[in-house]
């Protein structure tokens, strides 16, 4: 099957650098993914194309981009089942484009750091493991699979209009620690969560869950966090 890839290009080193689309034609085969097609283009057609890639098995989160209008991982998206003659590739929305499909990830990870995404527990640990029941583990077994690919935050209309909004990924990370029975850091995290650029900016639009390549229950986690904060306050 022949598929045309319309790829967003941007090179800041060009004079009057402007975002534009460039089309490439790729002969696809069953099982071929969007990342395979990008590699095909980069390796055999146009070496100047820039994008991030690494594990190509959906676990590192490097190759997130907007594929036909919706965020996802290039390495996980099979081409032929899409049944499209043309596939449009854009960088993740709402992040500054560095070159072509690669965006500046700094704001995303700054927001992540803001929720203090680590275990806070000043009590000296026991000699062995801290105990946790399988049910307690199950409460966090979903968010721990987050690969920080940025698809969710970049797909969120609240984030589009408010770059200070810490976004679904950071909130879900907060959920992962807030609902970890070993954690005692609720109070420290509250500052980042309980404000108009935190939890309350989530309007349950669900673009995050639709974009998430790991099918995580992000919005549900955020809802539980909201309830937790409300229950503590009122």
């Amino acid at each position, binding site marked *: 099957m022949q598929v045309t890839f319309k790829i967003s290009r941007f090179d800041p080193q060009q004079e009057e650098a402007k975002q534009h689309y460039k089309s490439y034609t790729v002969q696809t085969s069953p099982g071929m993914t969007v990342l395979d097609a990008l590699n095909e283009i980069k390796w055999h057609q146009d070496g100047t194309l820039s994008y991030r890639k690494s594990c190509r098995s959906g676990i590192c989160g490097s190759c997130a981009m907007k594929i036909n209008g919706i965020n996802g991982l290039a390495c996980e998206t099979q081409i032929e089942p899409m049944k499209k003659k043309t596939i449009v590739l854009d960088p993740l929305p709402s992040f500054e484009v560095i070159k072509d499909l690669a965006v500046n990830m700094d704001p995303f990870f700054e927001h992540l750091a803001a929720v203090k995404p680590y275990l806070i527990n000043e009590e000296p640990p026991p000699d062995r493991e801290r105990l946790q029941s399988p049910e307690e583990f199950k409460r966090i077994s979903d968010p721990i699979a987050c690969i920080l690919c940025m698809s969710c935050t970049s797909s969120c209309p609240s984030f589009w209009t408010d770059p200070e909004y810490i976004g679904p990924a950071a909130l879900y990370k907060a959920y992962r620690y807030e609902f970890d029975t070993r954690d005692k850091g609720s109070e420290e995290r509250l500052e980042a969560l309980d404000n108009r650029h935190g939890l309350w900016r989530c309007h*349950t639009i669900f673009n995050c869950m639709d974009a998430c390549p790991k099918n995580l229950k992000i919005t549900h986690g955020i*809802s539980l966090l909201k309830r937790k904060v409300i229950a503590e306050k009122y």
Partner: protein
Amino acid sequence: MFYRPKTGMLAWILFRTTGILLIIYLAMHITVISNLHNPGKFNETMAFLGSWQFRLLEIGLYAVVIYHALNGVRILIIDFWKGALFQAKMFWILAAIGLVLFVAGAYPIFTHAMYWKHNPDKSNYHIIEEASIAQETFLAGWEVKDE
């Protein structure tokens, strides 16, 4: 910037749009009922609003209210239960419920409108005079500036 909307985003866009429409309606509604102190104008306005053309608009309003209310319910289920896990399904179920409510409600509204259209003699215009008399008993001490 184009982003392909799925159910959740669609629901949200409609929710905001209907919210804005309802704000506009609320403003109109309060203005209208503020005429309550003037029975003449009240009935005149009501008569106008009771016209079948306006009733059609009212059916539109009814749809907007149903949407905003039912999606509000959906959001409550998301926020306070585990609705986030089946929000899309819930949207379509509520859409079906909304449709039933709409038809059930729109029908009487519309038949009323038709009723007035065909029986203009029974419309509100007839009771203006009657109401004007009633005004005096109700509005003792109220300064009527208009008319």
